[in-house]
């Protein structure tokens, strides 16, 4: 019983939030890693692409709610998501045509492309701020919980409760569908295979008649979809604020690099690793240990290893350690 109570407590406050956050990071990191694999640079504008996609989705959601269209218990934002993805897709194709293409044709060094992406980051950041403002926006509607603490306690008779918010459940379901669809696309379709070939060996891919422009276009569209989905899920789960999305860039990059940049499986593993590390290290574990350890060994302090503001520090300690000891990441990534 004691053990179960501890486990439920841990699930409620650490495992479920970390799973949801990890799924959001994983989808974000997939976007970063795809850009790296196909276009061969670290895209610093990814956080702001996410913010832009989410901002469009929020605006469309507001219109839908305004004319009385909702999804019942599910958040209306899911209905608006395709519009957000389409708008972001147009945006990234536009920036590619206007900005990145020039440097790709020149075969500029990756670091130049990174600096160019800094410029794009500034522009997108400004666009989002002008478009939707800098306020904190809550746009989740519908039912708040799948299971509430009371329902769980009544059903199981345990002292500790477990609540699963709708947004957390949606995050995990959507993430599973997205990842499955992406892997099916990359492994089974002709276009997906040509993308992987392009990523493995560009010259060989060109020789075998793969159209590089098409590969790049498809990549950007997928990246736009992933960025918007990640952004909307994060915004539904927490809230939307342009600046927070810029800061998400850090854990997302950490996830992509820790997993092995350019490797989609690595991005997913990295996302969950970073999320679990951040949540576990910054959550006070006193209650769990009180349940699990014998009474004499129960901890006196909060057993919060680091205060919540140090969560970036956690992702970067992991990042640094991985980079120093296993520079290609946990799963073998590219090293260009």
């Amino acid at each position, binding site marked *: 019983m004691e053990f179960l109570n501890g486990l439920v407590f841990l699930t409620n406050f650490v495992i479920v939030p970390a799973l949801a956050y990890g799924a959001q990071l994983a989808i974000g990191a997939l976007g970063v890693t795809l850009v790296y694999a196909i276009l061969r640079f670290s895209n610093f504008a990814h956080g702001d692409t996410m913010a832009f996609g989410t901002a469009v989705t929020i605006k469309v959601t507001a219109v839908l709610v305004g004319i009385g269209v909702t999804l019942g218990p599910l958040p209306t934002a899911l209905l608006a998501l395709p519009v957000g993805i389409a708008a972001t897709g147009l945006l990234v194709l536009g920036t590619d045509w206007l900005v990145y293409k020039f440097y790709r044709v020149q075969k500029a060094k990756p*670091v130049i492309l990174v600096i160019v992406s800094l410029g794009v980051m500034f522009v997108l950041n400004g666009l989002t701020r002008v478009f939707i403002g800098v306020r904190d926006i809550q746009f989740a509607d519908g039912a708040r919980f799948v299971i509430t603490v009371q329902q769980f306690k009544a059903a199981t008779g345990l002292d500790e409760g477990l609540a699963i918010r709708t947004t957390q459940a949606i995050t995990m379901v959507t993430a599973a569908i997205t990842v499955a669809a992406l892997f099916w696309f990359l492994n089974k379709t002709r276009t997906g295979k040509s993308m992987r070939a392009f990523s493995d060996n560009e010259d060989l891919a060109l020789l075998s008649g793969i159209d590089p422009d098409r590969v790049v276009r498809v990549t950007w569209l997928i990246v736009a979809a992933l960025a918007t989905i990640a952004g909307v899920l994060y915004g539904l789960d927490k809230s939307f604020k342009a600046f927070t999305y810029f*800061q998400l*860039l850090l854990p997302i990059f950490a996830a992509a690099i820790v997993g092995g940049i350019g490797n989609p499986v690595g991005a997913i593993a990295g996302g969950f690793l970073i999320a679990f590390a951040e949540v576990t290290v910054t959550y006070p574990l006193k209650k769990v240990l009180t349940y699990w350890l014998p009474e004499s060994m129960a901890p006196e302090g909060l057993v919060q290893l680091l205060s919540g503001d140090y969560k970036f520090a956690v992702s970067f300690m992991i990042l640094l350690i991985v980079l120093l000891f296993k520079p290609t990441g946990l799963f073998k990534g590219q090293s260009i």
Partner: protein
Amino acid sequence: MTDSLRTGLFTGFVALLILGTGFLDNWNLALVILNYGLISAIMALGVNLQWGLAGLFNVGVMGFVALGGLASVLISMPPVAEAWAAGGGRTLLGLAIGAAVIVGLVAVYKRMTKGRARNIILLLLTVAGFFAFRTVFDGGVAAIESVNPSLTGYLGGLNFGGDAGRDWWWMPIIAWPVGGLLAAGAAWAIGKTALGLRSDYLAIATLGIAEIIIAVLKNENWMSRGVLNVTGLPRPVPYETDLQADPGFLSAVQDLGVDPTTASTIAVKLAYAGLFAVFLVVLLILAQRALHSPWGRMMRAIRDNEVAAEAMGKDVTRRHLQIFVIGSAICGLAGAMMTTLDGQMTPAAYQPLRFTFLVWVMVIVGGSGNNIGAVLGGLLIWWLWVAVGEYGPDLMIWATSGLHADSALKASLIDSAPQMRFLVMGTVLLLILRFSPRGILPEK
């Protein structure tokens, strides 16, 4: 167009912008722009050394700037005697334990042979060290933070001058190079671990480290009060109220026929501008000497072809570490100056877009690899940054005057005008990268 003509024209243009602000708007604003512009120029000089001369992609500028600000607090504020008595020793002991554990970990890692025994000892040492550190350190911190928390609650600085440190007015100037030293120390530790990484990994690592430094400054209240902010930092220049009470100043102002209040605010800003300009000119001369010395040529050789330089017997890792430390120290110096100019330390104000990426825009627009270009780029971009925020809303009101008075679009466009800054900076950066990738004043 010759190089010197180009430099002259660019200098003239930047001077025209700042003077124009003074003549057409007001001199207080022009001098505020100039002061922060001079500080930005120093930061740009630091980044230019790292990127322009050595090709190091450091996007952790904000962290070094914030460390400089911390030095400003630690040197120029008066000490809090009760806090030192309550927990100063214990906190320092805790920090010493932490440092000893890290030294021990490195020693074990280097001395012992690879294997399970080493891993177990490393793990045990880490866990034991962490708990020993937290036990000693947390007690000291709690004692310090409980000393008059609404006003102090921190250890204070090293300024033993009377009247809240105002009597030792020169302490802030001493704090600036100390800020540089503090940033240099951090840069050394970071460089030792992260400089071996490829360019974009180094970028992510420095970006993260800067965030960590800000997180430390926000949380460690015993050091600089965290998000409670330290205000009222002593100044190296006279206070406006003192000037207004000074008969000598008043009679001088009367001869010029200026209002004493305005005159005092302008005099203070001019004094700051003079101080900053001295530092900037000295640093610029040093940077120019370094650029044209054998050392500078070696740096550029390493930047252009690391393998070839290594084959010629140059120690690439050492040189990279050296210039990373020097460049970061310059950013720290500028950060200390900025905190003194602000008169307060507010960790929440450090945002990467403003303190890291804006400096990068300055360097790239000015001309990476060209010191004068970076300095002028710093002044130009800072002017633009302030101008868009200051005049943007007016411009937007004028631009939307054709729209109906109560249209929602018009209201939201005017509201969002201050946010245009980011749009403008990004556009400028992209245009420069596209049409003049080597900047306005290219490297010779």
